[in-house]
């Protein structure tokens, strides 16, 4: 076949894919890091999506999503984007520690470990670090997601789906590595990382998502913001995120802050950690993510936090 005709096939195929997948195209652009590629994808994708939506080309894809059992991970008008700071008001119930049903080998604690890519190894190691038979862990890592970009992945929507699909006793949420971007508060103000408003908006979003994950206090949520990073630029943002989570714990019943930022290696970044007397390479080459071996250290901090609510988990 002549190359010209092949080019025709390629262009038609890509045009069909772009028209019928226009929502996915925009979402993919929303998920990219700020830069020219993202700008180009969005500037091309949004008009295509408008046209496709107007002439009903979303319908086939919606049908396919239904057939494949795919759930929508974004939605307009959620509290994450439209709610108010009232959710951050101090909650008096927080002063009293709730009590939860204790796990036994017959009734182990059903735990969901979720969040961004950091959640993967934490979930895996939580299983082998916990007392045998007392935890049933399911790990669902949503790579590349964060709280600052609900147009790409709305964690409030996802949290509702996750808790509705399972009968959970506790949730571990490890997230924040992809959140170094500006955020828009419900009143329309735009905040950059480092602005005081950024920390407040992030705390609000943590409060919204954790309220859903805990079903308003029915189960504890152990929130693990990022650890120290090799790059000081990330560290500034990660420190603010840790403060934001700590702030949200004042407002949301059953939300627990797990501080891996200032506790591991006394708050200093280190590629290696000593675990059980043995040095291990604790961080991946990106200087942020834990390795499988290194994830044992934050997992033990998570288990310590869990043991406050579930004393049976003590003495592992």
């Amino acid at each position, binding site marked *: *076949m*002549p190359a010209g005709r092949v080019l025709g096939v390629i262009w038609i195929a890509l045009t069909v894919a772009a028209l019928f*997948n226009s929502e*996915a195209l925009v979402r993919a652009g929303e998920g990219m890091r700020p830069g020219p590629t993202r700008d180009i994808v969005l500037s091309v994708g949004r008009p295509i999506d408008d046209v496709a939506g107007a002439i009903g080309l979303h319908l086939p894809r919606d049908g396919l999503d239904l057939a494949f059992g*795919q759930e929508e991970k974004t939605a307009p008008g959620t509290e994450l984007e439209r709610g108010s700071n009232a959710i951050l008001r101090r909650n008096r119930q927080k002063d009293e520690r709730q009590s939860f049903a204790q796990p036994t080998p017959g009734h182990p604690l059903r735990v969901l470990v979720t969040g961004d890519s950091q959640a993967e190894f934490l979930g*895996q190691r939580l299983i082998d670090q916990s007392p045998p038979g007392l935890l049933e862990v399911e790990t669902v890592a949503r790579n590349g997601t964060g709280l600052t970009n609900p147009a790409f992945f709305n964690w409030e929507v996802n949290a509702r789906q996750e808790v509705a699909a399972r009968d959970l006793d506790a949730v571990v949420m490890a997230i924040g590595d992809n959140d170094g971007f500006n955020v828009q508060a419900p009143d329309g103000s735009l905040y950059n990382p480092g602005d005081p408003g950024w920390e407040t908006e992030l705390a609000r979003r943590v409060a919204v998502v954790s309220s859903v994950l805990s079903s308003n206090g029915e189960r504890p949520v152990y929130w693990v913001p990022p650890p120290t990073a090799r790059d000081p630029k990330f560290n500034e943002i990660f420190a603010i995120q840790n403060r934001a989570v700590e702030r949200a714990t004042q407002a949301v019943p059953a939300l627990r802050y797990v501080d891996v930022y200032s506790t591991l290696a006394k708050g200093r970044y280190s590629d290696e950690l000593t675990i059980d007397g043995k040095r291990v390479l604790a961080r991946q080459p990106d200087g942020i993510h834990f390795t499988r071996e290194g994830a044992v250290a934050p997992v033990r901090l998570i288990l310590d936090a869990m043991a406050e609510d579930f004393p049976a988990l003590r003495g592992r």
Partner: protein
Amino acid sequence: MSFPTIEFAALFAVVFVLSWALMPHPSAWRPFILAASYFFYGWVDWRWVLLLIASSVVNTFASQVIARSPSQVARKRALVAAIVFDLGLLAVFKYLGFFVSELDEALDSIGLGSPLPLVQIVLPIGISFFTFQAITYVVDVYRGVTPAASLVEVAILQAFFPHIVAGPIVRANELLPQLRTPRDPRSVLAGPAIFLIVGGIVKKTVVADELARRVVDPVYSDPSAHSASELLLAFYGFAAQIYCDFSGYTDMAIGLALLLGYQLPQNFNRPYLALSLREFWRRWHMTLSRWLRDYLYIPLGGNRGGRLRTYRNLMITMLLGGLWHGAAWTFVLWGGIHGAALSAERWARERFAGFRLPAWAAWLLTFHVVCVAWVFFRAPDLATAFDVLGGLGLGGPSPLVTLPLVLLVVASVAIQALPQGWWREAEAWLVARPVALQGLAAGAVIVVSDAALGQQGVAPFIYYQF
């Protein structure tokens, strides 16, 4: 950059046009395709391109010395230097951390403390592939199989974007002659190319990623929390996943190269139909198999030194083949299982000459040896691998075992038994349709594949990590 992404689709659409436009002018086409390949490779980290360039420069220089020097000693030294450089790259970037950590542990276990620094090195993507490719080139020049090429040609041979990240491992005499002759824009092999690309997308998104997400990853994350039937589904499921993931990638690579006018070697030929391990390795990752055979097994002596030496050579070859995949004991054991099984098979063939297992039994045995070895390949550590194998006899509830997933596993194995003529007929039928219909069909498959993936997007190809 990964194939099934928006960025790559945009890049390829541009490269396709410019490549054919520049094809009649080799002096312009070569720098262009090299630049496009470096752009593709350096998308994640441009510094890796420098490593690739260094590899091309060193191997070109060595091959020129080999080709021009009248002295056999000088030729041999140049060959050894190039191989040491190539293996040195692999040793530093891929194995140094592993060996330092193992040595440190060994010293600690005999009471000498833990004196070595733990090494943290980023693994450049595709390094195992482009170094093996470089070795084939210098060795082939030394053997006189291929003439020495210019720096630009060697650089394209190594970096040509359809195959740089995960193969196929192309020999110089397969690609260089094609690079030297402008391709004919009137006869692009569009039928096979479109079939391979679209089929590769389906294999990756509809089968491999689906199996990984729904059963394989959850089971390997915590085998003890899963019943025997879930472990069994993950046991067979990973065999299906890795085949669809890796052959899907290779299909796309070969298809993309075909659209640009270049033919890359076949890498998979219905491997799960094999009736012996020897046959399996003639059908699975064929370009690696022949590399191991021609550049390791035969130089080690092959089957020329008697039975025991043959077994030894098989074991060494497969153990190193395992280690090539990754610096971990799980890969070594995977290679060891294959080496031992190949040796046992060879012994049985000689010991019981004239006796043949019925085809169904031979297939069953071969397939299950391969599946058991895959457990070690997939598991993050040996303990998890043994947990998976040890748990195959336990009962319990099995929510992960669903009919669609079982059918997906069965179909991905059974589809290999379809007569190959059917695919060729389908390709011929597709090419005979109008351009618009071909485009619509390809576009429709992309839409369905993306819907199957959902919002989590395409997972990285398994072989990207090697």
